[in-house]
Structure formats: structure tokens, C-alpha cells
């Protein structure tokens, strides 16, 4: 019986090992080599990892990755939850609005990036036109080292808050009605119902949404590559962008692998921490 079970599982386990463990293992092996394709790979031990520690661009990349992650995730969770509550309370429009709000996250990243690039162009973009029309000074948006990360976070939030909203809406619809009935009988005000009942009960759903977005946000790439390529300077160069450029523009595959393995470790660590958090808030 047990043997049959193992045999049945074997293909799936083998497939998973090949698809996950092999690329990771190969990437790790590559990260221990000096390889720029002009010669055979040369084993250099941990030299690439030691170089990371002394590389200011690595630390800039780490800072940008974390900053972008925090701003985007917090904004998306707040706005997504708010949208979900709005949708949940306006039942008549729910289907129509749900169809409309999913449109940003089904759009290809290239379309999203190019659209916002034009909208936010400091010379000809509509965003500055609107700002000046309402008496505000124009902004350099993606061209400002100070504003580039918040601007990219804004684009990502525009695209992915509806995704959070749909997940949270699903959670809202599955909450037990009896708790709300009890609150109504006790005369609890609506605000207290939201903060003391709805939100705590939604925490496992919100945590799940946070885990899903965290994986994407920590390896954020497409919108940045399309809009700024990591610039101005290195102001929006996340670890993923830096690793990609090192590998595919400068052909330092060993060092790029060390960057990517480090980033993968950060992603795995974050997902494990968030999974524990989700388990802690499950009711």
C-alpha cells in the first residue's frame, strides 16, 4: 500500500524537483563561478557573495526593493480592502463594478508601463497638464530620484489593488452571518463592527493576499524595466533589475547568479515569515 502510494507520487515529486531544485541548484553553482561567456566557468568559491557585501549598488538595490515592497504592499492592502468593503456594501453594482475593476490587472505589463510612461512624461504627459491646471507645480515623476519609487509604487497599486479587492471580497462573502446578527442585537455601531469584527475575521484572507503580492513585489521587474530601466541613476534599480542587467547586459553571469540567489533567499524568507503570520491570525 505504502509502496504503491510512493510510486504514484514519484512522477509529481520528480517533476517538482527537476523544475524547482535544478534551476536553483544550477543558479547556486553558477554563483560560485567567474563566468562571462568569453571563457570556461572558473570556480571562485564565495567570492561573488563577498563582492556583494562591498558593492554599493547591491545595497542600493536592496533598499529600493524593500522600499518599493513596503509602499506598494501597504497601499494595495489598504486600497484593496477599502474597495472590497465598498463593493460588498453596494450589491446592485457589484457585478458591473467587479468587471470594470479587474481590467487593470489583466492588462499586459508592457501596455501598463507604456501607458503610464506617456501619461507621466514631464514634457508632454497628461499628469503634469492636470497638475498645472489645478495650480500645482509640475512633477518630474519617473525622472526624479526622489519620486521615482513612489511613482512606480503608485502604478503598481493602480494595477493590483483590484486584485486584492477581489480576494478580500471573496473573504467578506464567506464571513459567518451569525456574528453580525449578534452585533446588531447588541446595537454595535457600524464602525465598531468593521474594526472589531470584519477586519479581524478578514485577517487570514488579507494575509493570503499579502503573501501572493509579496512574491511579485520582491521580484518586481516588468514595470520598472519598461519605464525607467532602473534609473534615474540607480534610484529604481531593484535587486532583480540589477541582477538582470549584470547577467544580460554586462554578461557577468556568476555575479548575476549570486544576486539572484540572494534575492530568492529574501523572497523565500519573507514568504515563510508571512505564512507563519497567516497561521497566527487564522481563526
Amino acid at each position, binding site marked *: 500500500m505504502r509502496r504503491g502510494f510512493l510510486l504514484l507520487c514519484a512522477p509529481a515529486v520528480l517533476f517538482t524537483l527537476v523544475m524547482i531544485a535544478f534551476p536553483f541548484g544550477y543558479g547556486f553553482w553558477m554563483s560560485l563561478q567567474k563566468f562571462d*561567456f*568569453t571563457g570556461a566557468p572558473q570556480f571562485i568559491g564565495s567570492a561573488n557573495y563577498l563582492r556583494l557585501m562591498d558593492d554599493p549598488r547591491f545595497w542600493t538595490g536592496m533598499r529600493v526593493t524593500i522600499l518599493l515592497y513596503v509602499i506598494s504592499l501597504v497601499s494595495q492592502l489598504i486600497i484593496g480592502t477599502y474597495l472590497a468593503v465598498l463593493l460588498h456594501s453596494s450589491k446592485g453594482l457589484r457585478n458591473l463594478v467587479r468587471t470594470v475593476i479587474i481590467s487593470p490587472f489583466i492588462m499586459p505589463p508592457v501596455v501598463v508601463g507604456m501607458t503610464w510612461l506617456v501619461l507621466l*512624461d*514631464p*514634457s*508632454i504627459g497628461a499628469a503634469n497638464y492636470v497638475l498645472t491646471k489645478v495650480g500645482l507645480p*509640475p512633477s*518630474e*515623476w*519617473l*525622472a*526624479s*530620484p526622489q519620486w521615482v519609487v513612489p511613482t512606480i509604487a503608485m502604478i503598481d497599486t493602480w494595477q493590483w489593488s483590484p486584485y486584492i479587492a477581489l480576494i478580500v471580497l471573496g473573504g467578506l462573502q464567506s464571513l459567518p452571518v451569525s456574528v453580525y446578527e449578534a452585533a446588531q442585537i447588541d446595537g454595535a455601531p457600524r464602525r465598531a463592527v468593521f474594526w472589531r469584527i470584519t477586519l479581524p475575521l478578514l485577517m487570514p484572507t488579507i494575509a493570503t493576499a499579502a503573501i501572493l503580492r509579496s512574491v511579485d513585489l520582491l521580484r518586481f521587474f516588468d514595470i520598472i524595466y519598461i*519605464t*525607467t*530601466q*532602473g*534609473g*534615474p*541613476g*540607480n534610484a529604481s534599480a531593484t535587486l532583480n533589475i540589477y541582477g538582470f*542587467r549584470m547577467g*544580460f*547586459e*554586462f*554578461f*557577468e553571469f556568476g555575479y548575476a547568479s549570486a544576486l539572484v540567489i540572494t534575492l530568492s533567499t529574501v523572497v523565500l524568507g519573507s514568504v515563510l515569515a508571512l505564512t507563519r503570520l497567516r497561521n497566527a491570525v487564522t481563526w
Partner: protein
Amino acid sequence: MLRFATVAIVIALSAQAHAAEFDWRKHEGETITLLKSNHPWPKAVLAYQDEFEKLTGIKLKLDTYQEQQMRQRLVTVLNSRSNEIDIYMSLPSREGPQFAKAGWYADLAPYLKSAPAEYEAGDLSKALMGAATFDGLVSTIPLNIEGPVMYYRTDVMKECGVDVPDSLEAMVDAAKALKECKPDMVPFSSRGLKPAMPYTYSVFFHNMGGQYVTSGKSTFCSDAGVKALSLYGDLLRDYGPPGVVNNSYTQITALYRAGRSIMSFGSSNEFGPVMEGGARLNDTKIDLLPPGAGGSRPTVIGWGIAISAFSDKKDAAWYFVQWATSPEMQARLALKGLAPPRSNVASTPEYKAWLEEVPLRKEWFDTIKRAAATGNSNIGFPIVANPQSREYIGQAANETMLGEKSAADACKAADVELQRLVDADG
């Protein structure tokens, strides 16, 4: 020296090539794949793709990307020694040393040697052929000739009483006067996007008297280097378009064509797109960047077409290369605005008539000819890691443009990394 000697030998031998009827149908039925970017050359030449397929019976498959994405695809394909790409576009001044060292170019010298006389291999630009030859290996055949040139709005400058600057230093005064006269327009625009800007910055650097490497040492931060960085950064920060650090050729072209910039330093290759619609045809002057303390040392480069070292169909691939870079084809492409890398093509009556038809076309072509006569292809450091050197040059320029660091400090920080690359180059 070896490089020029090789080119000379190849050209001499090719001149003796047999004049027997060339068998265009020898590879009938084969399929070859071309990896290309969105450069104007493939757009122009592939309008005649049917002719090639009818002439040879070879089927041409296309794989198209943006320039940077094309390189990434190339790296993946060639690093895995895959035979799925037979022919690809390449910029020898950028990736040439790297690709040649990796063994990714098939040597085109034997093909040139056996090409028929009517191919006129000897007429291909010797400078560009030399720049594409690495330790005797001919990596690419030039497709065009291009370089950064100044586009001036003469009507606006006349209205403001500002002369076309005659020196690099005079550009600041001109930009300042234009800003005061036309506050709603952009006095000066040029590339600011980090990976793209060394193309334009290198002319400032060389004209100022700079040289990237001297006796194995980076001289990026020589007096001339710091002055050039400071001038480029100041001009774009104080008189450039908002958001200039994200600007590449597309934004510069769009701004100038729309009549929003007055002095624009862009690629000669953008002549067609800049003049689209005809609004700029009668109010523009085209010239080289004004000279600096180091004189006038323009940049001139040419895209090339290469055959993959891992192609199984190199001979059929050469048929496409020979057809696409033949004097007849380059003469047709010249009439579409691609500056030809062959002197004979440039002197045909049709091309001369095309140039004379619009005075600005002639000015444009004369400017390219002057660049070709006196220019160099040194965009970034002349080392294997040339693309990476461009990154550090761009970083220093970005920091100066944004006012984050002085030119001297930005230069010093970049120079540490640049020297590391020079040392690694051996």
C-alpha cells in the same frame, strides 16, 4: 594595424574574384533565420524580402525585438551554442570585442574573398570594415553609417538673435540666451538615459580633448574629462527638457519634430523621423557638434550584419548578407534615408539627385561625410567590457545632471569602477 592589413588583403583578393555567373539558386529550399532590431535598416530592406526569396529560393524567417531585447535574446541563443539564429544585427563598436572573444561571429573574410566582382567588396567603408575586424576575423558587413549630429532651429535662433555656436563653450551662452528669449521651448536636448547617453556624451568628451584610456589607465577624469562631464551635465540640467535623465532618441526626436526644442543633439539616423510631416524641413540646420579644446572629433559608427558561428547554414546565410549589402540594395536603401557605407553608392546620379531635391538632405549627408572623414567609433572604453563602461559613464553623467554630485566627484566614483574594468581587460 593587423586589422587594417586584414581588411586590405580581403578587399584585394575579392577584387580578383571570378566574374563567373553567380548561382543564386544553390541553396534553394533552405530556411534561414534573421534576428533583427527595430532599426530603420531592417524595415527598409525587408520591404524587398519577396525579391530575395524569389531570387534564391531561400525562405527567410524573422525574429524581431527592440535593440536591447535583441541583445538579450542573442546572449541566450549564442551562449547555449544554439543554431536557431543564422544571421543577426550587431554593433561592432559596442559588443564587437566581447562577441569576437566569445567566438560568436562566423568569419566573413572567406565569403568576401569569394564574392563576385559585382559585389564590390572593396567599396565597403574601410574605416567601418576595420572597426568590425578583430584579430583578423571579419565580424560584420556594414549596413549604414551614422553618428550624432546637431539639429538647429535656425528660425527661432534668428528671431532670438542667437548665432549657431562655434565652440562647445559658446553652447552654454547660446542656450542661456535662448532660454530667456523662448522660455516655453527647450534650448538644448540630448540623451540622458544612462545606457544610451554615452553615444552623445562621447563627442563632448572627445571634442573637449578627452581620451578614455591612456597606457592602461582610465583617463575618464582627466581635466578635459571633468570639463566635458560638467558641460554636458550643466547644459542638460539647466537648459534641457524636464525628465532628461530618462530621455533617449525617441524623446529627443519627438521634441524636435514637434517644434519644442531649439538645439537638439541626436542621431543622424533619426533624420527621417525628425523630418516626418515636413514641418522641420525648412527651418533646420544640421551640423557637427561645435569643436572644443580638443578640436572636432565626431563619433561615427555603423550597424553591421553578422553570421552566427553556430549556424548550420552559413553559406545560405551569406547569400542573404551578400544580397542585402550589395551595391544595388544599398543604393535603393540610400534613397530611403539610410546613409550608405559605400562611396560608389553615395556618388550615383540617383542618390545625388535625391540629395539635391531637398537642400537639408544634402546638408545632412555632407555632415555625415565630414564625421566619417574625421570621426572615431569610441563610444565608451575600448575594452571587452565596453557595455559596462558605458553604464559607469552614464551613471556619472546622471549624477551630474541631477545635481547629486559635482562633475569631479561623480567622475571620481565612476573612475574606480572603470579602472577595475580596464585592469580586468588586461
